[in-house]
């Protein structure tokens, strides 16, 4: 079932896992008071491909740490720098941090970026395309591109409605996608002042639902809180290429925890989490244009199975390794963090 499996217990649960390099990730607490931000180095054994047997090192190393005054709901690494940006989910302002430097192990707060509106529910989404710019916003009406060093606003998204966002990401150097909780998707180019393209949400099978979006290599997936998944082409979001009813416990979904993501190094694979204590991998290439129930290709149930807490455990975050095809990291509400490399049984 697994080629590699590592199970860790953090002192406090995290809602964020963000790659800061090919071998390090940042995690952070989300309690209402003071929280830690940690940069962890993944175990050496995971990367020792040829001489794996000779490497006994299976542990995370805490390489840097810092303290945040409030919860950390969103954390983004600014590529090409040693900076990360966070949002506390209470306002749309962002905090800027520098990781390490001067031979120190501290993650230090070095600045902030003001959001367009001071108060917002649901917190801001953040996307970092280049090393000096940040795209952020909590609603479709307050998305802006800010110059990191000067604070200058380079672009603002103008929309008619103020839909809360569930995702914000770049699909090219200047074109970005803003996915709203109501299923609407805006696509805009930061170089132009032209109006964004709006694609309304797909017809929901389960009544009023929330939607999450992820885009990669020209495809877009939208997932609803009732487990409905729709695959579209980026250039034609109005049409669905395929869809399916996923096998998720939709009645228990926690909006803050749901994540859907395309595998960066595998074709047509998505990972879904936040509905329970499991992370599910689905292969979208077998989906059709008729509504059908599908089963996951793989299900990582480790968090629920090995949980020591009495309450139900929820997976709060997952990320794919950018290069290793089947390696993922997942975190749950009990503070556990797993690193796993799954085996595709269908290929055996």
């Amino acid at each position, binding site marked *: 079932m697994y080629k590699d*499996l*590592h*199970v*860790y*217990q*953090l*002192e406090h649960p995290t809602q964020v896992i963000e790659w800061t390099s090919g071998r390090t990730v940042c995690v952070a607490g989300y309690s209402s008071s*003071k929280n*830690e931000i940690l940069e*962890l180095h993944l*175990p050496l054994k995971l990367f020792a491909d040829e*001489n794996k*047997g*000779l*490497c*006994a*090192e*299976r*542990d*995370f*190393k*805490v*390489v*840097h*740490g*810092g*303290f945040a005054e409030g919860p950390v709901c969103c954390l983004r690494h600014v590529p090409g720098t040693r900076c990360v940006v966070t949002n506390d989910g209470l306002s749309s302002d962002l905090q800027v941090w520098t990781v390490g430097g*001067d*031979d*120190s*192990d*501290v*993650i230090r707060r070095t600045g902030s970026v003001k959001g367009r509106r001071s108060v917002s529910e649901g917190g801001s989404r953040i996307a970092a395309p280049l090393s000096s710019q940040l795209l952020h916003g909590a609603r479709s009406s307050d998305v802006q591109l800010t110059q990191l060093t000067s604070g200058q606003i380079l672009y603002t998204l103008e929309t008619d409605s103020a839909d809360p966002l569930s995702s914000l990401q770049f699909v090219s150097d200047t074109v970005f996608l803003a996915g709203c909780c109501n299923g609407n998707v805006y696509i805009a180019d930061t170089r132009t002042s032209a109006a964004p393209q709006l694609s309304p949400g797909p017809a929901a099978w389960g009544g009023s639902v929330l939607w999450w979006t992820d885009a990669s290599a020209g495809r877009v997936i939208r997932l609803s809180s009732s487990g409905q998944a729709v695959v579209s082409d980026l250039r034609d979001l109005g049409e669905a290429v395929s869809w399916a009813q996923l096998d998720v416990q939709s009645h228990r979904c926690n909006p803050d925890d749901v994540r859907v993501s395309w595998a960066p190094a595998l074709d047509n694979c998505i990972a879904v989490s936040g509905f329970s204590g499991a992370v599910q991998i689905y292969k979208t290439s077998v989906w059709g244009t008729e509504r059908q129930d599908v089963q996951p290709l793989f299900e990582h149930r480790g968090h629920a199975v*090995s949980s020591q807490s009495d309450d139900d455990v929820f997976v709060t975050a997952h990320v794919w390794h950018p290069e290793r095809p089947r390696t993922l990291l997942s975190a749950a509400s009990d503070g556990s*963090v797993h690193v796993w490399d799954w085996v595709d049984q269908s290929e055996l």
Partner: protein
Amino acid sequence: MPEIKVTPLGAGQDVGRSCILVSIGGKNIMLDCGMHMGYNDDRRFPDFSYITQNGRLTEFLDCVIISHFHLDHCGALPFMSEMVGYDGPIYMTHPTKAICPILLEDFRKITVDKKGETNFFTSQMIKDCMKKVVPLNLHQTVQVDDELEIKAYYAGHVLGAAMVQIKVGSESVVYTGDYNMTPDRHLGAAWIDKCRPDILISESTYATTIRDSKRCRERDFLKKVHESIERGGKVLIPVFALGRAQELCILLETFWERMNLKAPIYFSTGLTEKANHYYKLFITWTNQKIRKTFVQRNMFEFKHIKAFDRSYADNPGPMVVFATPGMLHAGQSLQIFKKWAGNEKNMVIMPGYCVQGTIGHKILNGQRKLEMEGRSTLDVKLQVEYMSFSAHADAKGIMQLIRMAEPRNMLLVHGEAVKMEFLKGKIEQEFSIDCHMPANGETATVTTNPSVPVDISLNLLKREMALGGPLPDPKKPRTMHGTLIMKENSLKLVSSEQALKELGLNEHQLRFTCRVQLQDPHSDPDTLNRIYTHLKSVLKGYTIQHLPDGTVMVESIVIKVSSSAEDTSTKVLLLSWSYQDDVFFCFFFVSFLSLIFSKQWLRDSIDS
């Protein structure tokens, strides 16, 4: 202010040879005396020149304490005691005392015989060193001398590992050595009471590690063994007589039972005897589960694990063999290795660190061609797996331990160049205590605030209560007077009368006198009367008496008036007061002088 000083010694900048000096209450203690396994020269030994530039260490150290038998904690002990020179007591637990010399001898053999080193301790030195050892029992306070006492606590980690509390008077330090906060299959978890030491000393690597679960490590081990067995291969697991071997046996036995596997598992001869012998001696050091098993049956009575015979190594088909010694440097494990190394279906699993110079060390470094005795080479075709099963605490564990012991200060030994500000800040914030991180050779000084307990006599307490006024309150302390007697080892606060009685001393009264000259034509009694009247009107609320013997008393101050022999208008006022009233006298005297040299008084003097 009293202080405790802590200096980590040690070679090189990395953690690896624990050796910490503590100065507490005038006593000097050495904690652990480890060897750095990565160096071949003097850098592998701690730098003892910090204690003294030349000469023996005996007069500079009150005792040496060893936490457990791992070489990075005791490897330099014979060198320190026999080659540098130390004749004082060396404290360690019973299991450590039994196992240490075996590991040291093995290590010595490898270093001298295999690597041909000359400046190394000899077998005799190991024996002489162990003669200085005083064994410790858990939770038992041992008096090193009149003032220094030590106590060992269970640390988990390996058989016999201890955390040690060092106490002088009311100052104390706890050193953790290596410890583990979660029980494993054959050892319990570390435990300490809320002893509130002034300093808790531990290693920083704990706090910066988040350990992979035991389950995953075991899963990996079982998976590797199973894969080899499935393809018909043989698995060799070189082990030391006990500890990890126990753990892995229990694991395999359970797995074999669950998966209904048929391949044989063997223990090499000698292993079972040694292991049983040690466990009988040290059963109290293992955990509850093992103890229960041992009572019912022999330690090594497993359903699927049998005693090994040399000839079995040539049997066809899959098998698993546990054999000593652990680093493949000699004996049976090496013999078996030589037979099995040439087949790629086979596997060797190294469950622990191997010292430089051993075959184990070479194959773990990827060497695939080994030079054996008689110039022959051995091709290493079998799979080599390095798995670490050693039980260490981690970031979460160290916080748990701090919560258990409630130290007033934290001290982390690290030796790494990187500043560990985050870690320091985390501990300081979470527990509101200072966190010190001295580098090797650097001294951390911690100021302590020892409380000195004093007994107070009941009579004195009653007397103070009888003085009335508000009850003493921690926010509003009240001064009280008494005499402090230090007798034998106790301190008592008693009334002065009781002190005089107890000590057989006579009470002496001190009275002071002073003379003030005054011009006054009146008669002596008249002057005295005027003084009396004026004082009465000015010093209201004080007891002022005019006594028939011709004196005026203000509280206990006595005032007499007499005339100078030459001139009757020159009056000499004699003032006398006791030592107890010194403070009051100063106040009175100021009033008195301002009174008799006032205009009113002069006018009255002239007028009458």
